[in-house]
């Protein structure tokens, strides 16, 4: 009996290894090549093709002051995007789930349609909107054309349909009685939202925050288009510049190093939120209630 079971685990582990091997090998290559002159397959080699060629020069970009400014920009973009999306989506999702107002159904279906639009189609329209904002005295400097604020604003807007639907779905899953109990206990609607409802949808908030953070962290099109610094705007545009510079041949080692550098925060962020993320799949945090 026990033997059978072990065989079964072995089999499932083997299957998993086979399917994940390409991805794992890919990351392994990425890691090795950041510390090598060149690679031959997974084998680090020096210029002459012999094993070795360990080097740190691929990571030299970290010494440039630019990279830290770019990283900060990327971080600001991702963070404010996440905060904005979480705040607006959880409020809107709550209203759409719980309050019966005129035009609720239309709003919901429109949101879904909006989500289906690729953002490229909106680029020119967004440009005009941003120019318009630029002309408003105080706001212009914060959210106008060629500001991080403006890019954050647009990114939030593009992320909202997904966020609102996700949050509405999670709020739908929270029992009405919980809210009624809170109202009878003396909560205002706001307090009920914050103290009773929001804690029930933590897994949803975790999921949405990691989606949003990753979207912001790796977003390319919007910052590339609306920040005139172009290459030096965010990490993804910087990476893009490395790949398409036509003066020097592409240096895969450096590219890999920047790629890995860009990956670190995502991994960190994931490891902080995964506790909640896992709960989505294991049936939520309700535990019998």
């Amino acid at each position, binding site marked *: 009996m026990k033997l059978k079971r072990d065989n079964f685990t072995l089999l499932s582990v083997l299957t998993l290894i086979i399917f994940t091997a390409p991805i794992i090998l890919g990351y392994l290559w990425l890691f090795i090549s950041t510390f090598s002159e060149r690679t031959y397959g997974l084998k680090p080699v020096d210029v002459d093709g012999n094993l070795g060629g360990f080097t740190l020069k691929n990571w030299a970009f970290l010494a440039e002051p630019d990279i830290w400014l770019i990283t900060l920009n990327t971080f600001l973009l991702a963070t404010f995007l996440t905060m904005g999306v979480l705040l607006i989506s959880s409020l809107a999702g709550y209203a759409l789930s719980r309050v019966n107002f005129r035009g609720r159904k239309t709003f919901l279906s429109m949101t879904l349609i909006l989500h289906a639009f690729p953002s490229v189609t909106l680029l020119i329209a967004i440009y005009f909107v941003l120019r318009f904002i630029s002309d408003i005295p105080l706001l212009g400097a914060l959210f106008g054309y060629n500001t991080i604020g403006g890019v954050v604003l647009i990114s939030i807007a593009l992320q909202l349909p997904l966020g609102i639907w996700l949050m509405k779905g999670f709020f739908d899953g929270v029992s009405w009685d919980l809210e009624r*109990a809170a109202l009878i206990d003396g909560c205002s609607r706001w307090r009920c939202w914050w103290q009773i409802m929001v804690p029930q949808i933590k897994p949803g908030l975790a999921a949405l925050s990691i989606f949003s953070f990753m979207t912001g962290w790796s977003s390319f099109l919007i910052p590339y288009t609306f920040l005139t610094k172009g290459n030096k705007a965010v990490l993804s545009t910087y990476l893009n510049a490395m790949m398409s510079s036509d003066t020097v041949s592409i240096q895969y080692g450096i590219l890999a190093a920047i790629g890995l550098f860009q990956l670190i925060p995502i991994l960190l962020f994931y490891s902080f939120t995964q506790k909640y993320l896992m709960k989505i799949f294991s049936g939520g945090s309700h535990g019998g209630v």
Partner: protein
Amino acid sequence: MDVKLKNLTKKFGAETAVDKMNLDIKDGEFVAFLGPSGCGKTTTLLMTAGIYKPDNGEIIFGDRLVNKVQPKDRNIGMVFQSYALYPHMSVYENIVFSMKLQKKSKKEMMLEADRVAGLLGIGTLLKRKPGQLSGGQQQRVALGRALIKKPELLLFDEPLSNLDARLRITMRSEIKRLQRDLGITSIYVTHDQVEAMTMADRVAVMKDGKLQAFMPPVELHEKPRTKFIAQFVGNPPMNFFDVELKSEGQNMQAFHSKFTLNLDSGRIPGRGGKNVVLGIRPEDIAIDPSSDIKAEILIVEPLGRDDLLQCRIGDLDISILADPKEKHRSGDMIGLDMDSRSFQFFDPESDQSLLWY
């Protein structure tokens, strides 16, 4: 605090969930709302709690019109079928949540929590999360959360439906005892007639959003005002069949195609036509071998103390209670003696009682 509902009406779209409900609940009274699922019990309760706004009518607490008063300002406690404990808070935090919102001091909260936990025997659970409690424990905590506010009105919405049968019986008497000791006016919603009958001082029977009757349990059982009440109250349910009433000299008789029954002179319909629906409870039919009314036993259902016999007279199905010691078996023929002092009569069209009105 006494509670009055006047012409209370609630519509959901075109559907009327509660229709012109009138109810007068006395201070300290335990009232049960009884009716089948979907008849508007919860809706009425939630209007009383202030969660739903009535479309029409008045809700009066004492002499205060509370239609526009927020739930939190009504000084009520409510217990839900789903318990509705806050999953992310400990039992203690759940219980004192309302006090915390009122910015009471820590000391006061601990004192009150101890008092309530003592009443309900949940003192050892205070540190746990609701998810770590059994259903019965969760319901006690929910009760504690309702009681800590010292409410003037307690609302229960099928609080025992999710519990197993034995626990239901102990909780039933416990809630009843607490309510009596504390003297809090209570409304208890249930679809279980045994619960309503055993716990309530008065039972409000509802059907399709309308109040059918509002009276003490015994009266509800003995003097059902409508056929619906007669059917719904009492277990096993009452038997009904169509009869034609005729006078035979001094006596009244009820003719059914297969048999004739003599009526009791003290129990003759005071109104209605010749054709009526006669109702009789299974426990009011005795087995009498000498009787002319012969029935065939179809099924014997042992209920423990009694056997429930599903019998047939011609094409009429009738159920009776028998002593298990008599060892009746399906297929046996028996004679039935119906106690004419327990007959109920209903109008076949309106279903109104012809005895009690």
